[in-house]
């Protein structure tokens, strides 16, 4: 009885008791969610266009971030560093297309999936080899990202909004919009959408599959870079990030592997959900449940909608 109270009633009483804290939690969750969404986004781009379950997206985030900081430390001015990093991401996309995707075309999904593991390992090794394994500070100021926090007095308490978080949210929104435009308006964008449906269609637009792969992987690279910067700015740039990046996966099952809006909504649900869970229910079981709550949310969700949030119903045929 008591335990039931602790689980079912008490948390909500707390929320009611301290609404400011509640809002705070929601906000934190929201921001984390946005960042999850960003990682998931890069993933969806690739899965849509090349059907590859790109496990390496997480590490690409770290790698991008590291490269940026690393280049800066080598003395490049920040803006230049950004450009060069973009260049690196492009080269990476090229390389992956040449070395991995092209030879493995028409192989079963699981094989490509494993290949992305290979990429992950490779990038971890490379990154550490060049920039060393220890965490780095993101060059927030040089990138003209705001620091500090705004304290808003509301609901009989103070809610703290980190400027960087706000920036993150804004930038994320901007980028999503940008992508949307890119997909809707530009020729390449349309081609990419076509690919998602059928490869022939893409060719009819007059772009080779290989080019398309390079483009999506590069786009994913850009997204990764932005994400890397944001994450970095909030905590620091380190390989620990890649485990957190795994959180993108439950987001994906929630949203469906192929749906951009799904990625975003999913990200937010997971982000907020796990923060609330951790904050209000975590203590009951000794905390730290962030590590798995996301997956369980997604899992429970899947059982009722196997096709994900935005997927269409699957009709099996013979």
């Amino acid at each position, binding site marked *: 009885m008591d335990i039931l109270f602790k689980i079912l009633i008490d948390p909500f009483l707390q929320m009611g008791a301290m609404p400011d804290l509640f809002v705070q939690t929601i906000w934190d969750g929201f921001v984390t969610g946005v960042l999850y969404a960003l990682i998931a986004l890069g993933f969806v781009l690739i899965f849509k266009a090349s059907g590859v379950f790109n496990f390496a997206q997480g590490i690409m985030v770290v790698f991008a971030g590291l490269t940026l900081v690393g280049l800066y430390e080598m003395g490049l001015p920040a803006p230049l560093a950004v450009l060069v990093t973009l260049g690196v991401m492009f080269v990476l996309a090229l390389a992956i297309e040449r070395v991995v995707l092209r030879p493995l075309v028409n192989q079963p999904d699981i094989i490509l999936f494993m290949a992305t593991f290979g990429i992950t390992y490779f990038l971890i090794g490379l990154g550490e080899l060049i920039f060393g394994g220890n965490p780095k500070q993101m060059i927030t100021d040089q990138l003209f990202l705001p620091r500090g926090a705004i304290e808003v007095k509301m609901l009989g308490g103070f809610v703290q909004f980190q400027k960087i978080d706000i920036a993150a949210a804004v930038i994320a929104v901007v980028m999503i919009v940008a992508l949307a435009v890119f997909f809707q308006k530009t020729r390449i964008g349309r081609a990419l959408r076509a690919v998602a449906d059928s490869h022939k269609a893409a060719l009819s637009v007059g772009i080779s599959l290989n080019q398309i792969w390079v483009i999506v992987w590069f786009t994913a690279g850009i997204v990764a870079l932005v994400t890397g910067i944001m994450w970095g700015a909030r905590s620091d740039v380190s390989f620990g990030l890649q485990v957190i990046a795994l959180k993108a*996966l439950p987001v994906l099952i929630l949203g469906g592997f192929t749906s951009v809006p799904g990625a975003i909504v999913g990200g937010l649900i997971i982000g907020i959900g796990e923060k609330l869970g951790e904050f209000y229910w975590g203590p009951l079981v000794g*905390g730290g449940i962030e590590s798995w709550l996301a*997956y369980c949310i997604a899992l429970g969700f899947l059982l009722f909608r196997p096709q994900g949030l935005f997927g269409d119903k699957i009709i*099996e045929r013979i």
Partner: protein
Amino acid sequence: MFYRETGQFKTNYAGDMAVFPILQDRIGIALILVVAFVLIPLLGSDFLLSSVMIPFLVFSLASIGLNILTGYTGLISLGTGAFMGVGAYACYKLTTLFPEVNIVVWIVTAGFFSAFVGVLFGLPSLRIKGFYLAVATLAAQFFLQWCFTRIPWLYNYNTSGAIEVGQRTLFGMNVTGPKASLEARYMVLLTLVTVLTWVASNLMHGRIGRSFMAVRDMDIAAELMGIDLLKTKLLAFAVSSFYAGVAGAAMMFLWYGGGEANDAFNINQSFLILFMVIIGGLGSMIGSFFGAAFISMLPTMLKFGLPALGIPLAGATAEHLTYILVGSLIIFFLIVEPHGLARLWQIGKQKLRMWPFPY
């Protein structure tokens, strides 16, 4: 080329359905067993035993487990590490609660615990397919890992928060704990692996194996033939997790000799074993061994091999290089032979049987 199959004919089904119908294969297996059971323990250096054979055997067991699930039944799982963990902790609790019972018994029994947990986390597999399922199994990975670290009861409230393997004997000989000799641990492990491999291959050659593969190849047709999908998939999860569990227990008690979940049973362990299965060859017993050998020995080979080749390495750099190499090698192998080392082996064998003809 070494095969002389002329005149090897079967006059009954038992003979025809034998796992190794060809005489030369049976001889080969016998030789391997002799080497493993006699020569290695007698002549093998400690290094060979501790850093090559024991890890190899433990991983073989684990990859057989995962192969049954992923290779034979077509269900991808990223939770193997966790299921190994369940085995390890179950064994730890059991042997601390009943120290007098022989440790080997507990190592095997531990398997049943992880089998049970495996079934629980296998339940979604009826509705979820492919990568969705893979991700779902991550839930198992992280949840269980969390349990291992957050539930002190599991590690007997050790201050270290880790499993501490005690002294256990078999036939009056130390087989676990610091005093246990490498040879003893190796022999126990080897026996376990041999027996369990035999069992697994038996299962896969019979009705159960066929229904697994049926589900893998064409689940709808399988269902229309009266194969109950849920039962079959859960059974696959159970068997698979059993092997993982035993592997986990063996890892803790016969190899690591104690340790902490976040190092031993983390997500990377799961991935590593998935590599082994895929590099080794999906749906192939021998593939599991190849994969385990390849992945488990690679870092060791690099660590000791490169300096031997005159490439001086600082520990850290070696670490990084290993990562790069492993990554590239994985991609390389996937490109050369997506069906894994087992397929290479198969082709080679076929060539030998058909020699001098090419096919």
